[in-house]
C-alpha cells in the first residue's frame, strides 16, 4: 500500500475545474516529481493534498486513511508538510522563530531539530536572530525548507523550491534535498526545471491542463514523449 495516493482527484476554484481525475501514488521513502507547464495544475495538486483547497474526502488517501478535504492544520499534524511556492516566510518573525513555528502543530521526535537544521544550513545559524526579510532569496528558501522539516514530516511537499534562485544556490538546495531524502522522508517535488526533476526523482508525473498526461521512471521516458505530454503537441 502506498503512503499517499490520490484517486480520481478533481479540484475546483469556485466553478472553475482545475484538476480532472488525477491518479497518483507515493511510496514510503520515494521521491516523485510533478512537471508541467504553467497553469497545468501542479500547485493546485499540492494544495489539494495539504488541505488549502477543499476536495472530496476519499480522493486523497494517506497511510490508509482518507484525508481529502480535512483542514490544513489537521493534515500537517498527521505528517504532511508543505514548502509553499514563493517561500512565504513570516516577516514579523526572526529566522529562528520562523523555524520554530514549523513545529507548532506537530512536535514529534525525529531526525530534524533546530540543531540538525542549522547543521544542514549553517548560514541560518549565523543569521538566526535577523528578521526573515533581511535574507537573500536562497537563504529564505533554506528557512522555508527548515520550517517544513522541523515537524519531522513523513511526506514533504515542495512547490517550486528553485524558483527565482541563482544556479549555484539551486545546486546547494538540491544537495540539501538529497540529505533530506536520505533520512527516509517521502517527497513530492513540483518543478519547472525538467532536467533537474528527472535527475532527482524516482518517478515523474506530467500534468497538462489539469489532467495527468504522462507518468513513469525518468530513464523510461524519452524526450519526445515528455515534450508531447508537457506541451500537448
Amino acid at each position, binding site marked *: 500500500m502506498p503512503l499517499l495516493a490520490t484517486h480520481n482527484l478533481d479540484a475546483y476554484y469556485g466553478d472553475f475545474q482545475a484538476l480532472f481525475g488525477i491518479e497518483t501514488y507515493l511510496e514510503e521513502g520515494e521521491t516523485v516529481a510533478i512537471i508541467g507547464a504553467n497553469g497545468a495544475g501542479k500547485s493546485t495538486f499540492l494544495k489539494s493534498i495539504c*488541505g*488549502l483547497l477543499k476536495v472530496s474526502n476519499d480522493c486523497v488517501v494517506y497511510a490508509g486513511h482518507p484525508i481529502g478535504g480535512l483542514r490544513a492544520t489537521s493534515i*500537517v499534524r498527521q505528517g504532511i508538510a508543505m514548502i509553499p511556492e514563493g517561500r512565504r516566510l513570516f516577516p514579523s*518573525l526572526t529566522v529562528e522563530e520562523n523555524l*520554530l*513555528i514549523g513545529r507548532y502543530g506537530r512536535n514529534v521526535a525525529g531526525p530534524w531539530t533546530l540543531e540538525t537544521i542549522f547543521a544542514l544550513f549553517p548560514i541560518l545559524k549565523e543569521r538566526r536572530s535577523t528578521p526573515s526579510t533581511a535574507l537573500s532569496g536562497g537563504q529564505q528558501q533554506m528557512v522555508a525548507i527548515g520550517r517544513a522539516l522541523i515537524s519531522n514530516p513523513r511526506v514533504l511537499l515542495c512547490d517550486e523550491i528553485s524558483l527565482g534562485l541563482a544556479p549555484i544556490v539551486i545546486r546547494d538546495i538540491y544537495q540539501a534535498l538529497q540529505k533530506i531524502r536520505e533520512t527516509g522522508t517521502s517527497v513530492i517535488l513540483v518543478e519547472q526545471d525538467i532536467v533537474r526533476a528527472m535527475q532527482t526523482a524516482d518517478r515523474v508525473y506530467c500534468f497538462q491542463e489539469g489532467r495527468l498526461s504522462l507518468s513513469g521512471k525518468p530513464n523510461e521516458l524519452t524526450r519526445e514523449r515528455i515534450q508531447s505530454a508537457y506541451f500537448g503537441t
Partner: protein
Amino acid sequence: MLSWVDTILQGALLGGLYALFAAGLSLIFGIMRLVNLAHGDLIVLAAFAILSAMTALGVGPVLAFLIAAPILFCIGYALQHFVLNRTLGRGVLPPLLVTFGLSIILQNALLEGFSADSRRLSAGTIETASLALLNDLAIGLMPLLTFASAVAVILALNLLFYRTAVGRAFRATSDDSEIAQLMGIDNRRIYSLAMGVAMVVVAIAALYLGIRANFDPTIGPARLLYAFEAVIIGGLGSFWGTLVGGIIIGLAQTIGAKINPEWQILAGHIAFFIVLVIHPRGLFPRAID
C-alpha cells in the same frame, strides 16, 4: 511655570488610561485587522460586570475584577468563536457591520439591565490619596496606579507576543493566516484566544475607568474613539506605540483644557489629526498590511 509641569504630568498620566482603553483594540486590530466598533461598549460591559460582582459578593473593586476577568475572557473567546470568526475573510465590511450592531445591542441590553443611572466603582480612600512631589505639586495615587498598570499591560502583551510560542503564532497568523495553517496553527482558535486576552485587558481598563469617573450604558462610543486614535497614532501592531498614542491624546487634552476648558476634547482630536497628516501610518508602524 509649576502649573504647566502639573498639567503635563496629569496629561501623561491620563494618557495611561487611554492606553489601557486602546491596548485591547490594538491587540485585535494587529492580529486580525478587525476594527472592533463595540470595543468601547465592551469596556462599559466589563465595568458593569465588576460592579455586579462588587454588589453581589460585597467585595472591593480589585477582588471583583479578579472574579470578573476570567468570565470576561470566556465571553471574549465565545464572542469571537461564535460570531466574529464568521465575519472574517469576506472583506472589510462584514466585521464593521457586525461589531456596529453588537455595539448597539450592548448599549441597549445594559440600559435594560442596569438603567441609565450613572454608576461608579467605589475604591475607598485610595481614590483621593496623593503623593506630594514638591510643595505645590502633587500627583494622585489613582492616576499614577493607572499609568503604571498601562505600562505593565503593554509590557505583558509584549512578553506574550515576543517571548512565547502562542505569541509567535499570533504574529505568524497576523502576517499570513493561510501559511500559518500549514504550520498547524488554527487561525480561528488564535483569533478567539486573542479576543479573550483583549477582554481581560478591557476589564483592567474598565476597573480604572469606573474608579476614575462615572459610567453609564451610553459612554462606550466615546471611549472607542480615544482608543482608536491612540492605536492609529502609535502605528498598527506596536504596543509601545499605542502607549505613546494614549499619552499624546492625554497630553493634548489636558493642555487644551488648560488654555481653555472648552478645548479639552477638541485638542485631543486635533493632535490625532496632526500626527496623521505627518505620519499617515502612525509613529511606530510594525505590522505589514
